[in-house]
């Protein structure tokens, strides 16, 4: 069994040595981006110092090494998410957002026609909304939303009706605002029964619990390395092989072609078809290290650790601040992850974050790229706290102390 000790994880992360405004760093913004452990940085440095070369087509040794690292990252990701068709189902993008754009602009634009419905939810991130709105403009599809109830969960009471005419259901595994974990496996079954495919936005969920695309029975999965202890600059679109094979290219350029003449071009098979230009090679090396690191922690351990932290924080927030601090999200840890949005009465999230910064506590104020959800709850912003595998109860201690300061400052 994998061993897990959050203190050891923390020890692997250099940024925790920082002192911010005379306080040790309290990083509670893992929902925005995670802090990479040393092994991830070392993998990238080692890549640049020993192996850096452009991938593919290279015959010399470092080019072969760089290619092996890049393709090795694809293998590792395929194993991490249990891709049935292996590495060739893994497409590297620059982030989860590009993955959704690839999905909408290649699969969507080629497979959907006017009137076809894509079903999202009100708790989606803009990355899983705007590309579909763009497709609505260009191809006349309908974009429909599953509502979110007052319990901060998907309102599935009229799911059958919502699924009518739907060709794709595209949903987040875990809300980056509410922390709500959605019943993807059930929804995949419902989607398939209605003749629709299902895409999973794993941006939040992949880093915090195990993701098995075969068990969940999803058709597409998108996520970013930087939210799972990896580097910026690389993301993933996974899709079942037959789906990828039917998708036309999206970005054009080197690497995705079979042939080019002055008259036209033909394109390569997946995944190369979707990776135009020099890919994020060092970033793939970093992602590979991140996947290995996360696997060594054990995703179940990470999930359990974060659930403990979340339960403790929810209890103490309620105990300390009562009505003054409202939790915008489920108030218990059943089917919810370590993202906690706060609405502090009388103190704007921006000001909450400003006061917390004075205590070295990093949280994120704003709409979290989920404006439809904000509107649903009549908010313009929340103050969002989010945990990572390196988070400790002492972070919650610092949060509560700083929050008390904010509340008293604004009276």
């Amino acid at each position, binding site marked *: 069994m994998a061993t897990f000790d959050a203190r050891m994880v923390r020890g692997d992360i250099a940024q925790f040595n920082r002192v911010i*405004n*005379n306080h040790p760093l309290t990083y509670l913004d893992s929902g925005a981006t995670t802090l990479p452990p040393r092994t991830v940085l070392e993998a990238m440095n080692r890549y640049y110092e020993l192996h850096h070369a452009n991938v593919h087509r290279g015959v010399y040794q470092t080019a072969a090494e760089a290619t092996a690292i890049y393709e090795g990252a694809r293998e590792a990701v395929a194993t991490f998410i249990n891709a049935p068709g292996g590495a060739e189902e893994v497409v590297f993008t620059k982030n989860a957002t590009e993955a959704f754009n690839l999905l909408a602009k290649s699969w969507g634009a080629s497979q959907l026609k006017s009137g076809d419905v894509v079903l999202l939810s009100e708790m989606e991130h803009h990355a899983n909304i705007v590309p579909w709105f763009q497709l609505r403009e260009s191809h006349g599809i309908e974009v429909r939303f599953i509502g979110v109830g007052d319990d901060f969960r998907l309102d599935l009471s009229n799911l059958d009706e919502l699924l009518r005419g739907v060709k794709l259901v595209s949903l987040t595994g875990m809300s980056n605002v509410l922390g709500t974990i959605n019943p993807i496996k059930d929804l995949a079954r419902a989607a398939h029964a209605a003749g629709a495919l299902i895409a999973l936005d794993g941006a939040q969920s992949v880093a915090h619990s195990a993701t098995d695309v075969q068990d969940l029975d999803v058709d597409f999965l998108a996520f970013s390395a930087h939210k799972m202890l990896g580097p910026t600059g690389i993301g993933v679109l996974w899709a079942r092989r037959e789906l990828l094979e039917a998708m036309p290219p999206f970005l054009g350029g080197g690497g995705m072609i079979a042939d080019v003449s002055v008259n036209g071009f033909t394109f390569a098979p997946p995944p190369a078809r979707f990776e135009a230009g020099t890919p994020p090679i060092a970033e793939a090396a970093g992602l590979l290290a991140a996947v290995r690191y996360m696997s060594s922690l054990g995703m179940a351990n990470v999930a359990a650790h974060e659930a403990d932290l979340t339960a403790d924080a929810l209890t103490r927030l309620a105990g300390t601040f009562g009505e003054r601090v409202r939790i915008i999200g489920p108030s218990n840890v059943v089917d919810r992850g370590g993202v906690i949005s706060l609405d502090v009465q009388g*103190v*704007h*999230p*921006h*000001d909450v974050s*400003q*006061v917390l910064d*004075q205590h070295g506590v990093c949280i994120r*104020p*704003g*709409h979290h790229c989920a404006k439809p959800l*904000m509107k649903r709850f009549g908010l*313009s*912003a929340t103050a969002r706290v989010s945990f990572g595998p390196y988070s400790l109860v002492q972070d919650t201690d610092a949060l509560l102390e700083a929050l008390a300061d904010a509340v008293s*400052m*604004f*009276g």
Partner: protein
Amino acid sequence: MNSLDDLYREIILDHYRTPRNRGELPPPAVRVEGFNPLCGDEIVVHLAVTDGVIADIKLTGQGCSISQASSSLMSAAVKGKSLEQVRAVISSFKQLMTLEESVDQSPANLRSLGEIAALQGVVKFPVRIKCATLAWNTLAQALDELPS
């Protein structure tokens, strides 16, 4: 280290808690919306101008203490002033919000600004400058949209 007291002066918290000139004005008052997409701050300025003087100003909107206090302070500073005077105040305020060393931050100059000088501490928190300037940019836009 910059102290939060520089940012959250008593005057600012006071204007945030009890904003001046809240409300709307009916047409023919000019109505201009200001919006900061990064943080979601929102200000709507309603401006009634008679004989080249700001006869009345009302504000709605929502946002952080700095954006809302700044709009309240602004409304108090410009109400009853001639358009020429208002333009001068806007320009002094923008000076105050610049990070350049050359700006005259002498006590005498700050005194001439009156209450809005309380916003001076914002420059030490660069991410908040946009919060403070939103209302002023919206006012400047409203002036541009006045029927001439």
